[in-house]
């Protein structure tokens, strides 16, 4: 679709906190889901008379169901600690993209209807009625949050704007105002099995093609099994890994790791998607239902382990929420964590000396690593806190010679979102995505200039798709982004004498 013209932010000599530009992004709104899309996943088709009462009832329900929301509505003191932490604020200067101001869009309504001060002294505490105008602001600005939780790292009370955004989207969905991109995808995952809507025959065909390509490339029969009952590992990976560049290169990497380690594995046509957009719209039931497919597939196939491919939010849902949503996982091999990240699996094999690499094959690459927000701040790998930072970097160093981290304050738990997470990876939000990528692009530019970095590795399908799209806006080549297992796949020795 044609996006209105906008200016790509310029990368200056050093990052600066922008001055406020009120209303700079007020026009940014995603497409509204059709009645058909909404109803397919159990939401009302459109906004109808009486939506205010229903929205407030939903808000009351969520306040009673989520301690996070209840506490976060009260606890903010407007200290401003978060005000310069959001990539969308840094990229746009719109004050409503400051986490505190984004939260305040809901807090103002919460105060008006749920607190003594707001009921009796609304002006004093900034309380407002829930009008159509306020709803329009919600629609715009709660769709300018990628739920990356960077603000929650810096808030003295740990207030997590993602929780507020999820609640806002849940309330809007419940009155018939849904986001087309996210809700259409949720429909597809139920109907077809994955977010891209790839039916089983097409998937089987693709995997066969990959077997042929890989054979041609390295001369070894690396398999890409689908629906093979009795395999040890069920690999659940974002469906972008089947069709998109550079994602598919990482899928080839996983297959080579399994091959080299002699682990039997399979993909599932029923659970051919690791992504779980139920998270993005804050809907517990959807998140649970989408997760349940994986458990069902694992049971049907009789696998012993479940491994997740390179996908950030999928890993958060799987690592942090699966045990709650669809646990316990009886019948799986207790020697391995459930679920296990593909990086944990590969790293473990490397540490045990089970994989051999020719690091020279990655010699043309000068690599940096982009920590994906959901992995960095919403999950873990390995058995110590921060393993999610150590393990991917350890893999990269094991398979390549040249690695340079980006500046402190832009990596690890302070990493910047790619700008396309949280259900915003859609062309109707392109301006937001380009501008929101600015802080990452600034940090990248530094290592490109200082070290000649030409490869930014990441372990998230959304990051890969987002960067492929926005890198050119900042004058970088789109092939600068790729997966960690893309590097692994290139360097790994298969069927060669060690």
């Amino acid at each position, binding site marked *: 679709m044609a996006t209105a013209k906008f200016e790509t932010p310029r990368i200056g000599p050093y990052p600066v906190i922008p001055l*406020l530009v009120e209303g700079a992004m007020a026009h940014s709104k995603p497409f509204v889901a059709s009645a058909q899309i909404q109803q397919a996943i159990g939401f009302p088709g459109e906004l109808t008379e009486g939506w205010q009462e229903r929205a407030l009832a939903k808000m009351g329900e969520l306040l*009673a169901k989520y301690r996070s929301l209840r506490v976060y509505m009260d606890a903010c003191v407007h200290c401003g*600690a978060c005000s310069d932490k959001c990539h969308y604020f840094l990229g746009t200067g719109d004050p409503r993209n400051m986490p505190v101001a984004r939260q305040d869009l809901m807090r103002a309504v919460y105060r008006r209807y749920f607190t003594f001060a707001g009921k009796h002294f609304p002006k004093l505490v900034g309380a407002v009625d829930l009008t159509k105008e306020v709803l329009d602001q919600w629609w715009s600005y709660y769709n300018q949050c990628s739920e990356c*939780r960077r603000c929650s790292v810096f808030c003295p009370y740990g207030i997590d704007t993602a929780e507020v955004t999820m609640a806002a989207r849940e309330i809007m969905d419940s009155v018939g105002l849904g986001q087309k991109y996210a809700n259409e995808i949720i429909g597809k995952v139920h109907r077809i099995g994955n977010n891209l809507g790839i039916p089983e025959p097409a998937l089987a065909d693709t995997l066969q093609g990959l077997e042929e390509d890989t054979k041609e490339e390295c001369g070894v029969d690396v398999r890409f099994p689908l629906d093979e009952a009795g395999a040890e590992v069920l690999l659940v990976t974002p469906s972008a890994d089947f069709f998109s560049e550079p994602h598919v290169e990482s899928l080839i990497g996983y297959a080579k790791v399994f091959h080299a380690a002699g682990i039997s594995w399979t993909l599932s046509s029923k659970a051919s998607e690791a992504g779980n957009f139920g998270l993005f719209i804050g809907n517990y039931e959807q998140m649970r239902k989408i997760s349940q497919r994986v458990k069902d597939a694992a049971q049907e196939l009789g696998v012993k382990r479940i491994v997740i491919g390179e996908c950030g939010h999928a890993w958060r849902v799987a690592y942090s929420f699966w045990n709650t949503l669809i646990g316990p996982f009886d019948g799986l091999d207790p020697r391995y964590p459930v679920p296990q990240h593909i990086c944990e699996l590969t790293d473990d094999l490397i540490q045990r000396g089970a994989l051999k690499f020719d690091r020279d094959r990655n010699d043309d690459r000068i690599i940096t690593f982009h920590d994906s927000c959901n992995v960095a701040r919403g999950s873990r790998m390995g058995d110590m806190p921060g393993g999610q930072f150590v393990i991917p970097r350890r893999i990269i160093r094991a398979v390549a010679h040249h690695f340079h981290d980006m500046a402190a304050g832009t990596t690890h738990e302070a990493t910047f979102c790619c700008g396309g997470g949280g259900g915003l990876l859609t062309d109707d939000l392109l301006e937001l995505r380009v501008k929101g990528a600015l802080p990452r692009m600034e940090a990248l530019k530094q290592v490109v200039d200082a070290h000649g970095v030409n490869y930014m590795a990441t372990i998230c399908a959304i990051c890969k798709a987002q960067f492929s799209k926005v890198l050119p806006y900042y004058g970088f080549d789109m092939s600068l982004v790729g997966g960690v297992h893309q590097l692994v796949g290139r360097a790994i020795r298969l069927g060669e004498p060690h």
Partner: protein
Amino acid sequence: MNILSVGYALLFYAATAIFVIGVGHKIRSYARTPAPLPIPTTPAPTTTAGVVLRLTREVVFFESLFRSSKWTWVFGWMFHAALLLVLLRHLRYVQQPVWTPVVFVQFFGTYAGFAMAAGLAGLWARRFLVDRVRYISTPSDHLHLALLLAIALSGLTLRFVAHTDIVAVKAFMLGLMRLDIQPLPADPLLLLHLTLVALLLIVFPISKLLHAPGLFFSPTRNQADRAREQRHVAAWAAALDKK
């Protein structure tokens, strides 16, 4: 015994009741609201002891704020630490005999009043000088600072400039604790100081001052990161499993 003393006695009883019941009610609502999913901001401690340590660092040092904004941290920490010393010092007015630690803290608590005022002034200045903080400030944010600063300044004036009959004040306070109302000096500055303190107690449960109990109930800070090892289920979420 006069109307003034009775009036202030009633004011303090009412303010204390509102504070205790109001905050207690809020804490109960936080405690009773389930946290259905584990959402600690990672990297997070994997044990309960680690969580206690994380929260202790937040409460004592304002660890996260230190990482976010050094100026806000300097003023915020200075204000809160000074407030603690000032409160401890004031314990002498409701104790007889006075505990040794409270005797010890008198000197520090007295001069902490200046740090408290300076911290508040710094925090207030940010609301005018930093455009982002100015944008998010509501009238209530300014009034909270005005209230606290007025308490600090009136207290400092009573201590250093215009002494009040502190012995009588203490007798009044000790009397309140025994439900035996003693005469309160009719010193306007003292009455202002006491009124503002009562007001602070009253607004506490209906204002952003709830950040104090809120921190302890913040799931991103008070949850351990052990999702794979330990199943976390809230009642309403568990009910879905039975369907």
